[in-house]
């Protein structure tokens, strides 16, 4: 009995963890390309879910068409955000950028509240709600969708960043911006591109989780912060360590909520965040920076 329960908590923890991982990777991609921590990242998660809803209800699109539309719409918002809020800054300081991205997130959230209202909305799941039994635990088909899509996105990411010239160029921008310009990389274009990838990934995360948790104009705050935790645990890498960070966070949160008290669910994430920042600011798996001159 006890074991079944733990299995159940772990499985649902893994699926929320996968979502945190996707959001966390979004944070890391922008951070690595630009040095910006984009606190508006969570809002793209919210936009993904709510745009899907609009596509379904107002445009009467079938789900398979609504999803790409929603991703495209959220990505467009991400591009506008980069163009209007980030690019015009000449010589921005980190604190300017933090304030701007937080301001941007409040603005996007406010607009979303005007458009979609304050209610919580349900989004239909991708392929029914018949539970599937695994051992003594049950999961929903939507959980499988989450695992599969997360896996695909992570694999595509890996290929992009390590095996394509454009991905390597984006990494080059993060390691040495000036030198990137000197080999002919258009750094501003890369920054824009990082916002495109991140907002699209955030939207996907929002779309695949919306059927499980419902969505509303303010879901981005908490999901964004959890994704940020995942990225911090992973040392702001856009690879495997952030994925593990997200999964770890999801599982611990779910076990904590199940075995201790669901009131502590969010507290657990932030305790982990603080512990990591205090004791291993380079991330759980990161090596401390060393440079050879």
């Amino acid at each position, binding site marked *: 009995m006890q074991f079944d329960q733990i299995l159940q908590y772990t499985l649902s923890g893994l699926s929320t963890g996968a979502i945190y991982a996707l959001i966390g990777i979004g944070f890391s991609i922008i951070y690595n390309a630009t040095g910006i921590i984009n606190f508006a990242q969570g809002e793209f998660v919210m936009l993904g879910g709510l745009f899907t809803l609009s596509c379904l209800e107002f445009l009467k699109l079938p789900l398979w068409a609504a999803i790409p539309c929603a991703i495209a719409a959220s990505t467009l918002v991400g591009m506008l955000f980069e163009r209007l809020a980030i690019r015009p800054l000449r010589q921005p300081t980190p604190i300017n950028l933090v304030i701007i991205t937080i301001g941007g997130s409040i603005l996007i959230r406010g607009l979303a509240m005007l458009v979609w209202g304050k209610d919580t909305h349900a989004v239909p799941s991708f392929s029914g709600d018949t539970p599937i039994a695994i051992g003594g635990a049950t999961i929903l088909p939507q959980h499988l969708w989450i695992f599969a899509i997360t896996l695909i996105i992570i694999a595509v990411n890996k290929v992009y960043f390590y095996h394509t010239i454009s991905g390597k160029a984006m990494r080059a921008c993060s390691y040495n911006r*000036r030198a990137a*310009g*000197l080999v002919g990389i258009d750094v501003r274009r890369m920054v824009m591109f990082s916002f495109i990838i991140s907002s699209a990934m955030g939207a996907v995360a929002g779309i695949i989780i919306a059927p499980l948790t419902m969505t509303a104009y303010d879901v981005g705050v908490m999901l964004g912060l959890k994704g940020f935790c995942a990225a911090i645990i992973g040392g702001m890498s856009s690879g495997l360590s952030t994925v593990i960070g997200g999964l770890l966070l999801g599982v611990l949160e779910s076990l904590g909520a199940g075995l201790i008290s669901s009131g502590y669910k969010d507290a657990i994430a932030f305790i982990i965040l603080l512990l990591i920042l205090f004791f291993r600011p380079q991330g759980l798996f990161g090596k401390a920076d060393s440079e*050879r001159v």
Partner: protein
Amino acid sequence: MLRIKNINTFYGKVHALKNVSLHLGEGEIVTLIGANGAGKTTILNSISGIIPASTGEIVFRKDAITALSPDKVVQHGISQVPEGRQVFKPLSVEDNLELGAYLRYRSREGKAAIHKDMELVFELFPRLKERRKQLSGTMSGGEQQMLAIGRALMAKPKLLLLDEPSMGLAPLVVQEIFHVLKRLRQENGTTILLVEQNAKAALKLADRGYVLETGKVILEGPADELLENAEVKRAYLGKDKKEIWER
């Protein structure tokens, strides 16, 4: 091939280049010498578009490139090997070289041609070939300098700008690098603008030189004349004042 007319460049309020003019002919090796802070690096950065000149004009083969961004300057065929190598440390030697050819990838040039050029770089610097899979940040300073030059060459530049390639390197390595520069001019006809603290070595390699002081060109001429110039000897070649006076 390159003509700089009366440029003025500022770092914030600091007037770093004051009415600097210079020119390079096709296939020439020209060196800029001068003390720290004389503006040598700034000239390269103004050409590369990192710190654009606020007035004046830079013309490269009939195109005005004064206000272009760094990537556009590379597109015109000017590559810079920056001061302090600036290789992409967490990337392998091969990845660094591939990124050097970034614009060629973007213009859909075939992989085969790019890899052939990578072999040419390995031929110039055999040590890079041994270390092609190694992360560039873990290599020695000399090897990183070779990589930085190799990376710039991957763009197939017509004009190569080099900023203090000898800095902090052992004399033998410096010799090797200068030898490669000579070969580049002989074999590919690459034009080179070389900034150096090591004025003697630079003037021996170069055809012509410019001497800079506090943002101004104070002297210019054929390299062998500059090597014999009393003022240059005193200030930059480390000859004792007395030695010159007694002659």
